[in-house]
């Protein structure tokens, strides 16, 4: 078993205006040839920085350590040599294929450019090879599409082009940095399949970087778990997913909706990741770890080596005890006690919406909603699932009264939206509210949090500022924020906290219906669970009604009573949550289901055999030990 890449004590420091960010701290690992090696971590874990630093794509960073590949240390060779290795010996696939391909050059020329940069071939030969590559990755009519531009392809096709580009010179190592994150769920599955095929055929080694644990549980042979720039655990797939040694890994698995089993609560990881402006003197996960022991607070953890070859940087000698499942503390979810089947919070009947786009003289009609019928009962959580472009966001806007329909009846809180006047529309705002997807974009960066949350009161009620303030502060407590942070700006909060602010704002006037538009899609997995739990408990307490929109069936399953699946502007299936999962009726639902759900890995409680413990390696910048 030869290793293709050996990284030893890699540290990456980047200078920013706020100070030096320690993006990667002392990470070591080795990648076996011919395997798929997964690196998993949430945002800020340093996983992308790691690979970009090794390949020389971060010339401004301060990199120490070693990375042996192809017989040389990538960190010590000259830039020109490293440059010649890129593309030829190391192929790279990036996350967003639309922005990763040059918009002004044909895809064919972008691939041939790569070939010409490293080999002396005639343009005709390069072109022929490119066409062959394109066909291999599944692009039909490759000969003609050679001269197409990136914007003329769909997302999945563009990613195939990027894969073709990475393969062009048959590199022994391919680094795929979040290759499927920006794609639709059904396309994701296809791309992963393609990558596996490619890997098996060429025998190349793939390093797959992702935040999606479920993805790796199906294809990776070894996995490294990163957190706050440090390596937490590394090991074979079976052990990482079956008997995780590190509490963080266990926490990730438990809080991941993909590993959800019905009747149980999601177990989030409390708190949030630490700042990277200081290298971690002790275990970086300390503040959020529920299995922390006294030693954790005094010394940095040693590296535990297990019989199966796995390693974990932890004081615990055996598996994380958090593998024990918590029994559901929340009442059974099948029938929500507050649900009133007879009372409708909102309903739409045969709603159609057609956009007229295009410049004057060439107006095109684009039908977005093609006859949608839906009823939302008071007290329930209705999930709306579909891929991008299916119309779910538009439907949400329609129900919220923000977009007029071309045909059909929309009723919210008993009022038909077609016939209300402006004043009534304004009053109706109290009844339906939205929680948005983007925690960074949904709050005005120039306004203080107290003012943002207090906005509904300012617009709809006559309260003195003192009264408003106290109401806002109680709302903040309700959603788990510190009420003393009333005067802070959104930029001072993390993504998860901002989402809480958005929820508080939506909650202020106790609306009949809260529409949650992908509220957790932009959050880290460990924070997602926090927010989902929050939404559920608020619903329990206040008898709220939710319309929950998502592209992720796994998330929706946890929180919804009924689920509507949308495709092409119509609702193609509507049933109880469990029925959808147990017996999907429609073909599309089945595809969606199989693509988004990974096989839940049985987590056994069997302890692992500790072989040895290595003390924490001396950090180059010296570690202050707290007595």
């Amino acid at each position, binding site marked *: 078993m030869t290793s293709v890449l050996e990284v030893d004590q890699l540290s990456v420091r980047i200078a920013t205006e706020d100070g030096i960010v320690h993006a990667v701290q002392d990470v070591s690992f080795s990648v076996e040839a011919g395997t798929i090696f997964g690196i998993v971590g949430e945002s800020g874990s340093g996983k992308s920085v790691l690979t970009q630093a090794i390949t020389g794509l971060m010339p401004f960073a301060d990199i120490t350590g070693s990375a042996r590949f192809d017989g040389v240390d990538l960190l010590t060779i000259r830039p020109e040599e490293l440059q010649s290795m890129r593309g030829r010996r190391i192929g790279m696939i990036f996350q*967003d294929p639309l922005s990763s391909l040059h918009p002004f050059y044909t895809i064919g020329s972008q691939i041939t450019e790569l070939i010409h940069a490293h080999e002396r071939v005639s343009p005709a030969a390069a072109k022929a090879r490119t066409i062959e590559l394109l066909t291999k990755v599944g692009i039909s009519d490759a000969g003609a599409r050679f001269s197409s531009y990136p914007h003329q392809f769909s997302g999945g096709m563009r990613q195939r082009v990027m894969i073709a580009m990475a393969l062009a010179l048959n590199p022994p190592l391919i680094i795929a940095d979040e290759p499927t994150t920006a794609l639709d769920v059904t396309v994701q599955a296809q791309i992963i399949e393609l990558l596996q095929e490619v890997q098996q055929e060429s025998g190349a080694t793939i390093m797959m970087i992702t935040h999606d644990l479920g993805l790796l549980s199906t294809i990776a042979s070894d996995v490294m778990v990163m957190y706050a720039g440090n390596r937490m655990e590394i090991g074979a797939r079976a052990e990482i997913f079956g008997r995780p040694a590190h509490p963080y890994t266990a926490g990730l698995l438990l809080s991941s909706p993909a590993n959800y089993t019905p009747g149980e609560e999601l177990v989030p990881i409390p708190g949030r990741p630490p700042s990277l402006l200081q290298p971690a003197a002790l275990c970086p996960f300390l*503040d959020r770890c529920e299995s922390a022991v006294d030693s954790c*607070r005094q010394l940095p953890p040693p590296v535990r080596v297990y019989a199966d070859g796995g390693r974990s940087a932890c004081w615990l000698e055996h598996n994380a005890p958090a593998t024990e499942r918590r029994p559901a503390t929340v009442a059974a979810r099948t029938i929500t006690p507050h649900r009133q089947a007879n009372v409708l919070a909102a309903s739409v009947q045969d709603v159609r919406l057609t956009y007229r786009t295009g410049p004057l003289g060439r107006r095109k009609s684009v039908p977005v909603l093609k006859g949608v019928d839906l009823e939302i009962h008071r007290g329930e959580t209705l999930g709306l699932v579909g891929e991008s472009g299916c119309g779910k966001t538009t439907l949400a806007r329609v129900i919220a009264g923000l977009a007029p329909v071309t045909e059909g009846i929309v009723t919210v809180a008993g009022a038909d939206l077609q016939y209300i006047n402006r004043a009534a529309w304004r009053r109706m*705002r109290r009844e339906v*509210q939205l929680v948005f997807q983007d925690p960074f*974009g949904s709050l*005005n960066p120039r306004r203080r949090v107290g003012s943002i949350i207090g*906005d509904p009161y300012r617009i709809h009620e006559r309260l003195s500022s003192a009264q408003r303030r106290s109401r806002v502060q109680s709302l903040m407590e309700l959603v788990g924020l510190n009420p003393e942070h009333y005067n802070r700006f959104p930029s001072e909060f993390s993504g998860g906290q901002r989402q809480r602010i958005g929820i508080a704002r939506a909650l202020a006037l106790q609306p009949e219906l809260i529409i949650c538009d992908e509220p957790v899609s932009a959050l880290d997995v460990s924070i997602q669970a926090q927010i989902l739990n929050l939404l559920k408990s608020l619903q329990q307490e206040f008898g709220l009604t939710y319309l929950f929109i998502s592209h992720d069936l796994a998330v929706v399953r946890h929180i919804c009573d009924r689920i509507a699946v949308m495709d092409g502007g119509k609702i193609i299936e509507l049933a109880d949550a469990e029925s959808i999962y147990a017996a999907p009726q429609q073909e599309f639902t089945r595809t969606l289901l199989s693509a988004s759900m990974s096989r839940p890995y049985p987590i056994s409680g069997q302890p692992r055999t500790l072989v040895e413990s290595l003390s924490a390696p001396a950090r180059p910048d010296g570690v202050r030990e*707290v007595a």
Partner: protein
Amino acid sequence: MSDALIVEPTGAEAPTRRVKQRGSGELTIRRLLRDRAALGAFGFILLLIIFALCAPLVAAATGHGMAQQFRDTGLTSAGIPKGPGHTFLLGTDSLGRDVLVRLAYGARVSLLVGVVASLVAAAIGVTIGTIAGYFGGWADLLLSRLIDLVMSVPFLLCALALVSVRGPSLTLSICVIIFFSWTHIGRVVRSQVLSLRQREFVEAARSLGSGPVSIIVRDVLPNLTVPIVVYTTMMIPSSIVFEATLSFLGLGIVPPAASWGGMLSEALNGSLYMVAWWMVVFPGGILLLTTLAFNILGDGLRDALDPKARRVGFVWLTRRRRASRSEKKAAA
């Protein structure tokens, strides 16, 4: 509520050093104070303002009025102006007038025109840009076309035509400058407002029932302070040069009133400046320094208010995943 909901434990930052979060206003001032060039520029501008305000004092101190011609003491026997010396600190011009005094009065004109024209043009540009960007549709179509129209017009030629008809005057100069300056900031504001309008917090405000005026004032405009401040500051030197150009071509302020451009025009007349270098160096120099100072100040303000605008040479990666994903969803 279960324990899982409690916000991060207060010791979240405890083992690591507390990273001090500074308020944004404080950060801006700190950055500005660190920028020595901007401070120097600001100092120069202050001095210039004092110089302009004290123009009558300068006249009184030297004993030379602004339009007073000293043919015997100011000109040589051949009728050529005298250079810098005892009586005339910066020399005289072709009519024997004191250059120093005229510079001071010229400063008044330049500063007045520069600041007034910029402020008014900025106000117009911001208003039109905001309306076009926020309301879209027909309003945007018409206003954008209007902006395009005004920008297509060869402004100096039109200024020429206007002046030939109405005769030169200070008010006319200011009006012409305003008319041709507002478009640039109008365009910038429009595109910023357009992109702000797509942001979710504006949609959130709408869904809360906020009216358009309220949204514009509370949500949109506060996010525009940086470009507005920076562009307005940058417009001042353009306006000053524009006025000087008009005066230089004889289209601006009416002689014998002093204007830096006018002084330069007199210097050019008959290539007089070849023998009287002070006639070009002093007015030209002060004009150059003034524009330089305002430009430096504008740059400094922009760097202090929006440090991302200053390139540090790499891209911080983490946020991009979130941003690109949500953009993609938004585009869907």
